[in-house]
């Protein structure tokens, strides 16, 4: 079991809605006094809403900061990577540092790979889903990496079965998940003291899920439509709850995919 009730520095990207919002709200409540939570996303107002919900539920000593940034814009990401850690004056005040890579996008699922030609949107996609999180991870280790042994570090990255199974019209999404999953497997080797949780949230009722319905691939659309009627179509709070549970239980193998369904004891292929 991991004791989350310690002074923690926590970052959650994509905390403005969907799974990220729920992760931020639920995780923040588990943290100890004087913790500092950084919420990162594009929509300032939505972030403030998440922040308010957290403040209603946590001890007054827990600080919540909103870092509004367009994570598909290079300048924004570069600035955000610094701003996120602006508040860290002395890392010894923290016992635990957690980085949650949740922000993601699907890419253009209305097209097949042969129709992809918009270089600009492909670069933005890579930035949001791959290079941004990679560079943020590096920045995280720069700040907390060389702390004394008692400073625990945890990196969570939201993945999907799309990282191992190809789907039509999910080209760049599958590609990014496969790349990220491997990146964090290398991180697990480079940083054996760090806990790395690759978390598959399951099929969750979010805007992103709805977007898959725009695919011209009839099989995908019918599968997706099917899923939305099942009991294993999760609400964001359920999926986030399972993630927090996994963090508390602390039994997961670094960078090996942990599925929400397994945490929830649901039998789903």
């Amino acid at each position, binding site marked *: 079991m991991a004791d989350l009730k310690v002074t923690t520095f926590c970052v959650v990207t994509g905390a403005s809605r969907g799974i990220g919002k729920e992760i931020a709200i639920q995780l923040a409540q588990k943290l100890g006094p004087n913790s500092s939570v950084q919420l990162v996303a594009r929509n300032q107002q939505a972030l403030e809403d998440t922040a308010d919900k957290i403040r209603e539920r946590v001890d007054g000593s827990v600080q919540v900061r909103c870092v509004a940034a367009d994570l598909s814009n*290079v300048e924004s*990401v*570069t600035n955000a*990577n610094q701003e996120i850690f602006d508040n860290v004056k002395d890392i010894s005040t923290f016992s635990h540092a957690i980085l949650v890579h949740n922000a993601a996008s699907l890419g253009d699922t209305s097209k*097949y*790979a*042969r*129709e*992809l*030609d918009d*270089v600009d949107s*492909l*670069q933005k996609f*890579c*930035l949001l889903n*791959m*290079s941004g999180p*990679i*560079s943020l*991870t*590096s*920045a995280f*280790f*720069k700040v907390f*990496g*060389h702390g004394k042994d008692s400073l625990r570090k945890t990196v969570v990255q939201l993945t999907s079965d799309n*990282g191992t199974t*190809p*789907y*039509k*019209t*999910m*080209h*760049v999404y*599958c*590609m*990014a*998940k*496969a*790349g*990220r*999953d*491997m*990146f964090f*497997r*290398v*991180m*697990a*080797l*480079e*940083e054996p003291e760090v806990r790395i949780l690759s978390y598959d949230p399951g099929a969750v009722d979010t805007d992103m899920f709805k977007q898959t319905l725009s695919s011209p691939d009839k099989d995908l659309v019918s599968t997706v439509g099917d899923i939305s009627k099942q009991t294993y179509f999760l609400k964001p709070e359920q999926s986030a709850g399972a993630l927090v549970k996994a963090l508390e239980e602390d039994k997961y193998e670094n*960078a090996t995919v942990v599925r929400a369904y397994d945490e929830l004891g649901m039998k789903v292929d």
Partner: protein
Amino acid sequence: MANKTTESFFDAPAVAIITGASRGIGRAIAIEFAKRFTNRLLLVLTGRSEKGLQETAAKIRADGDQGTIEGVIEDLFKGIAPGTYGHALLVNNAASSGDVSKYVRDWDTTAMKTIENYLSFNVISPLLLISKFLSSFPNSKLDNLDRNSTTMRRTIVQLTSMSAVLPTECMSLYCAGKAAREMLHNVTALEEPGIRVLNYAKGPVDTAMLNHLKENTASSKTTELITKSMEIAVSPEKTASVLCGYLKQDEYESGSRIDLFDIIGFPKSE
């Protein structure tokens, strides 16, 4: 499933686009293709070194394969009349190792641009090439886009490595890039049932990259791994030849991955 046509893999008039052809494996594949294709062959070679590309072209011409080569051009897809070829090939070979001299925690603050450039070259470029290739050589002639027609053979080969499946210290970008590329080609194979897509893990090859990795890696575990690889490394010509033999047999499942040593057997230790 094999795409059994009456014509052998190397017999139709063909156009082959090969990236990273200015040296190493890309060059070896270009040369091997020139040897093996029996009919008209248009080789479209790309690479970062103009000089290297010219040398590749010169080697091909010097080997006396002049008769089968129409030209070597650097402007991809320009002026290629798709209707005149029976087989179009794309070899996504170009790749870079990334900075292996540092652990991720030691990357400097300008890492953002470096990571972006890395993914641009190793992941986005191959993706755009696939897209351009597929739209330039549509399945059937002109308007009739019947995706299951076998009017023209199309083959996409992606040069990959063990690093796509074996995480290695100080090679995070290389491993991530390879994993991403393989998945991209897997999705392509799924979307395009009329195309043959192969992820070819080239094995350890005696090239500048392998030497560079050994000299520069910050991880002793990785140095050990590379040293072992170098002991059983093959020449670029060898891996190119094995690839071509495998392509010719044409029995692989589209989207699958095959490793050099799966084909020729793992070398026995002395």
